[in-house]
């Protein structure tokens, strides 16, 4: 990837951060607010992983390894969250 591409991603990350800061001021209600912020977080994380960590051009096996960790971790997180519901 060219230098400009990396800087472009950085601009994207900054914009997403600015959006995060903006939407917490909007009267959205808890559910929408949380899903909005989580959506932006996922976009930012993906931008970094795919372009800066270069997963785009890596072997799929590496992404699966990483993803598997995410699946396992999310499983625990969800179980923790639903414990009393």
């Amino acid at each position, binding site marked *: *990837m*060219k*230098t400009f591409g*990396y*800087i472009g*991603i*950085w601009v994207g*990350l*900054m914009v997403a*951060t600015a959006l*995060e*800061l903006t939407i*917490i001021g909007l009267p959205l209600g808890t559910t929408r*607010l*949380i899903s909005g*912020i*989580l959506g*932006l*977080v996922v976009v*930012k*994380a993906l931008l*970094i*992983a795919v*372009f*800066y*960590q270069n997963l785009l051009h*890596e*072997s799929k*096996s*590496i992404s699966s*390894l*990483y993803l*598997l*960790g*995410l699946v*396992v*971790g*999310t*499983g*625990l*997180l969800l*179980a*923790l*969250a*639903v*414990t*009393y*519901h």
Partner: protein
Amino acid sequence: MSHEHEIPSWSVRRWLFTTNHKDIGILYLLTSFYFLLAGGLLSLLMRTQLAFPGSSFLTAGSFNQAITNHGLLMVLWFLSPMAFAFANYCIPLQIGARDLAFPRLNAMSYWLYLFGGLLAALGFFMPGGAIDGGWTVYAPLNTIRFSPHIGVTLGGAGLLMLIASVTMATVNFLVTIFTMRAPGMSLSKMPMFTWGILLTVFMMLYAFPSLGAGVLMLAADRILGTVYFSSQEGGAILWDHIFWFFGHPEVYIVLMPGLAALGEILPVFARRPLYGKKIVIAALVAATAMSFTVWAHHMFLTGINPTLRKIMTLTTEAISIPFGVIMLSFIMTLVRASIKFTTPMLFALGTVALFIIGGVTGVFNSSVALDYGLRGTYWIVGHFHYTMVGGAVTGLIAALYFWWPKMTGRMYSERLGKIHFAFYVLSFNLLFFPMHLLVDMPRRVYTYSPETGWWSLNFIATIGAMIFGVTWLILFANLYKSFRHGKPVGENPWNAPGIEWTISSPPPQHDFDVTPAIMPDGAITFSGLKPDGGSILLHESAVHGEGEETHFSPWPLVIPLGTFVVLLGIGLGFPVLLAGAAIFAFAIVGWGRDDLASRFIALEPRFAEGWPFDGVGRVKLGVWIFLASEVVLFSTLIGAYSFVRINSATWPAPGTIFNINHGTLNTVILLTSSLTAVLSLAYARIGKTNMVKIGLLATFVLGATFLANKGLEWVELFEHGFTFGSGLPATAFFITTGAHGAHMVGGLVVLSYLVFRAFTEKITKENHGSLEYFGLYWHFVDIVWVFLFPLFYLM
């Protein structure tokens, strides 16, 4: 040949500074036996106390220490390390590699394991005694309020060293098995034992970080005064989840190596190939995946979500399917065979029989309904000893007898071996079967009254325990005799397949003169030809022979030693801590200098099977594997945050405590530092070394600024009286962002090494790997912050 370069076995330096996989395997074996003896003696103390009702041989306090350390030592410091002794010794031989991918890391794993065990055991000599809340160390008994003695903290510190050891070993074995297989050794041709270890380390990779996070949280609670486990919103259930999320895969982690070894031992002595090798592998893979979905069966009676409990009942029952398939494949292997009842074969058959009993009683425990009666009773103790001793230990004994001639070049006594087996099986059942009949007796009670009627069964179990203890002496006597006077054996005393049986016993230090290759029909060749007809360059071995001297390194020993002293310092005071930190820093610098001077060379095979990671360099793969485990670590921390937040009636609104400006500033700084890091790599690729220097310096300055701003923020919070002990929001904030900050500090240490390399012109167009690996880690730390920022500042 380079045998004149062999280092004599009496050389102290060899054993302290070795990085050779076979030497480290032997160190693991001996050390695991040391911890076995310690754990075994503790269990004999317990059984002596329980032989008669109302006995006062032990006090309640010492009984609790005995039972806790028996569990911890046996599960974590004996069982897995004994499996790793064989993994270290055999796996490079089985896949035709000359060592593990990272020999120094391997040595460091060993020393961390040893020092961790010693640290935990030190508690016995401290006021208040050793850790004593059971091996599950339930909250909130584990907090400073209910267990103020230092022994518990030391136990936690020992666990942390062990977790570090396991994480390194995990990365090492995964990279080795994935990228260093001899040409022609596809995954389906890979020996069963290597398969078993591959899946074992996969489970370790994703299970241990959860324990790591839990122990870190506990340590923070005990040392800094945070309140994760002493608060009611976190407390017992939070620990339960985190512990058992690790704890149940751990059961399969200790079991799988032994079972996988049977997959090699049974066919060799039945003289028939394993029945349905692919089915067995598929079943092991299924069990590995399912092992992460059953943990809440340890929490059936805690009043958690009924749907969660029903799901875990079903998954727990379902996990018996793959194990049933494996057992029946093992038995099918015997059909129309020609079975030789050698000692390893007897132990292998014994493993199958005993594990079946443990597996069947396991199905009882999957039932939420039966758990109302069985939880916390001797039935459970009986059940898990049938799986973890009957299954795991018996299998590892079979493996020990099987590979002993390979490791020593000498045969053991079959007669003594058979006597060992007879007494072993008899006393095992005498010891653990009666426990199933003590369905009413609670675990971990130090005595019972005569009216309970539990005496006779307890007495029988104690007699069994005494005999069972003696059977280990028979084993050690046999091994000692064999080591001194055993009949020398050739390459292959068992007429076994497998690469390890084609070289001398014991193998030469460098294992192979010529890299082996596997032909499509399974033939092992040392002809220097690849299966596709190309040729392997012959003499990597010449380098290796001379290279033995350079394969010593003191740093894998000194770094854990420094860690040990630092952790000791937490208890003994600041000067000790400082001394430890000095040792640690000295060793890190020493390691770095060795690298700069290329003083330690790990040989990379030029031709190897690498599916499914073809073309990925091994350091890079290692970093990625490590990051995968880090994902689980931070998921656990974020999970803990979510758990306490959901259960707390109130939580401070955004902007009331945590200053959004600090968070936003740090977000901008960190995201920018990722940009400068990735740009340095891009410039390195095109050889613009000056830009690399600027990029790295900028990254360093940004990282340092992030930490400075963080420090400022913490000082402000402290000044406003918002400290570690100020409730759950404070606890979650300081622990989670603190763990992230610690990762930043680690990154900056590596970064300063890179800056040094860049300014000494060592980062070039051709050689910028280290920059890339650092970047992967740095971006990961950035991603973590992307999650933490809204969680703490915006929501």
